[in-house]
């Protein structure tokens, strides 16, 4: 079974009847492990389409969860259930629950650092005080505003006033939360979320290959969201110092945000500063400061000293890149897509810039680079319709779907290149609500621009490094 990966969650959705026999057929350890490797923070099994389950059925999943959690340090568990299913699971496992339970995928997202819609007002209640505290801390650390009811009655009363809250959490249980280093992209910066006690284990939980390839595809600002870090030891200190040194040749900047030195020696800060690492109290001190972003290399790729140019290796594979894009657009729109013009130059977007949105995805491995797709908004909506299922004016939804679309393009490229004997991995997709923010990133980089169209609707493909 294949998982749907979205917003840092990898979700498996078995259907029907789940018992000891069927459990292992629905899901294999390879399925779970390969999903866990896709930079997800949680791997969950949705029970929304399971009409019957028993302990044996769940056990087959729980065994896999335990293995993957130990190996990949991510959060694992179940989601999308009703009260009856929730109480059944609690009854089956009593005091031996080492996985998490989230009433819905929306609730699960609130507990991830990848989730971008922060600052939610969340009403919650849990009769278990330690659970209540753990949830409140996690929610707060993820940038939300938890409102904790002290009693069931208070919760019921407050819950009547649904408009006052963005989300109401009930029937949720936090097992061991993941300790992997969550990754998200904001603007042109990559944000890693680290937590608790940082020791030698950071070498295992931090995806160094992803970091190096992000450097390769042009990211220059890396922020460690360290609000939840209690302290770090000498091994972690060495790790971050080395990370800063290795990034120096790319002119990259590493920042720590929210790191407290109550339990970490202040001398560590000095050592890290000597390595070029910068410290900030609040995330917004960086993200809302355009001047600083520019200085740190996050607002414009033109700040990079050694501009990487498109090379023969990439150009040779151009037909594969275009084929993947054309095939995906044809699949999504069920219409014929065609190539109109090709040129090697800086990106040139014609027409009104404000009517256009864009998305991009990087690839790295045997070759590396970045693909950018620029769509007129109406065309983007059309291309998103297969996944959304209806016409929409919700720009956020269109951008999310466009990210999925470019992710599919990336997946197709990966498999086409693999057939040609070239191994690449793809980064997280990015979307741009306006073209100006895209131009900030691309700057004056040269690349291959291909004007494409389907049903006479034009869009732009740009391949660069």
């Amino acid at each position, binding site marked *: 079974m294949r998982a749907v990966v979205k917003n840092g969650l990898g979700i498996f*959705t078995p259907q029907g009847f789940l018992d000891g*026999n069927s459990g292992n057929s629905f899901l294999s350890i390879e399925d779970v492990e390969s999903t866990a490797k896709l930079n997800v923070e949680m791997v969950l099994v949705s029970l929304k*389409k399971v009409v019957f389950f028993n302990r044996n059925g769940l056990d087959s999943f729980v065994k896999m969860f335990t293995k993957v959690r130990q190996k990949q340090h991510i959060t694992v568990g179940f989601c999308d259930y009703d009260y009856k299913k929730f109480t059944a699971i609690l009854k089956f496992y009593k005091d031996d629950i080492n996985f998490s339970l989230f009433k819905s995928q929306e609730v699960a997202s609130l507990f991830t650092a990848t989730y971008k819609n922060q600052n939610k007002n969340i009403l919650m209640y849990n009769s278990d005080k330690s659970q209540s505290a753990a949830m409140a801390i996690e929610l707060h650390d993820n940038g939300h505003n938890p409102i904790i009811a002290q009693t069931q009655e208070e919760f019921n009363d407050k819950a009547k006033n649904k408009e006052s809250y963005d989300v109401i959490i009930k029937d949720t249980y936090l097992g061991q939360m993941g300790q992997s280093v969550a990754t998200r992209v904001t603007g042109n910066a990559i944000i890693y979320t680290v937590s608790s006690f940082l020791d030698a284990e950071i070498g295992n939980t931090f995806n160094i290959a992803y970091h190096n390839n992000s450097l390769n595809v042009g990211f220059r600002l890396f922020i460690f969201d360290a609000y939840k870090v209690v302290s770090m030891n000498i091994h972690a200190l060495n790790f971050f110092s080395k990370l800063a040194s290795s990034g120096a040749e790319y002119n990259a900047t590493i920042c720590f945000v929210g790191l407290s030195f109550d339990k970490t020696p202040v001398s560590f800060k000095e050592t890290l500063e000597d390595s070029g690492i910068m410290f900030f109290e609040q995330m917004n001190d960086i993200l809302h400061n355009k001047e600083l972003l520019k200085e740190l290399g996050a607002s414009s790729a033109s700040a990079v000293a050694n501009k990487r140019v498109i090379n023969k290796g990439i150009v040779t594979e151009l037909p594969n890149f275009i084929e993947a894009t054309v095939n995906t657009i044809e699949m999504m729109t069920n219409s014929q897509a065609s190539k109109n013009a090709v040129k090697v130059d800086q990106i040139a977007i014609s027409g009104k810039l404000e009517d256009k949105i864009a998305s991009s995805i990087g690839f790295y491995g045997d070759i590396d680079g970045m693909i950018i797709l620029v769509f007129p908004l109406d065309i983007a909506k059309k291309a998103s319709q297969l996944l959304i299922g209806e016409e929409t004016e919700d720009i956020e939804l269109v951008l999310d779907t466009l990210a999925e679309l470019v992710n599919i393009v990336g997946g197709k490229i990966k498999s086409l290149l693999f057939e040609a004997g070239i191994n690449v991995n793809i980064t997280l997709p990015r979307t741009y609500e306006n073209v100006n923010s895209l131009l900030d990133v691309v700057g004056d980089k040269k690349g291959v621009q291909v004007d494409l169209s389907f049903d006479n609707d034009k869009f732009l493909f740009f391949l660069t490094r």
Partner: protein
Amino acid sequence: MITKDTIDSFIEKIPPSSKILKVTLSLLNEGELIKAAQIAKEDLALSAYLKNLVNKPIYGFKNKVDDVSQIFGILGVAKSQQAVYSYMISLLSPKKWSLFTLNQHSFHHLQDTLSLNWQKILHHLEITDKEIQSAITLLPASIIVAEALFNEKQEDVALLRSASDIDLNTILLRLCGVDLFDICAMIARKWEMHTTIVTIIQAASGAKPADEEKMNLLGKWMHLLLFFTLSQTEFIEAGLNDFIDFHIEYVDDIYEEFAQLMEIQ
């Protein structure tokens, strides 16, 4: 990916039911079992299918049954009609499956499992109408249609489904405006199957409840039976479990009764 033309071409390639099958069904409809058997014998493939069918352990006959007249006699009118329809559907199945990990044996096993449990359900609901009994035979056609339309698009489907929780039925509906069950209905009409069968199958998709209460109820039972069957190891491993969406809320009111009948603990 898949267009209306692809669907039209698929339907066009389906041969009309043969004269022997038409006459056999017509005689069965009139209750003429012996005459129907005499005609059915002329179609050697049908005879072989029927012999193979009733001699499977799942049917539980002690002695081997060889003669078509004997088979129709044992099965009775309704089950004989059901068996002939199952044969017709099996004619549509591909020689080699690629989207789903099935073969002729496992597809027949799926047909048999659905048919026997459908009998059990209809017995429980005290329904003897032979068209309703035969309705189950059209259900596996949805799997054949999915295989035929999507087998060359497996990679696209896999990529699409890794980004979105979307089933084959919905993909087809959004691309072409018709779903797998609409196509099953087209096949049924081409083969002049009774309208009751078409109505129940549409409701059994779980996405299109029937207007008539009885038909809707039967659609619910069939939808739940389908997912009860597709939750068996053999069919999960064949990749059938999520080819269409299970509408759990649609079957909510009959689940307890179903669980008791199927002795689910």
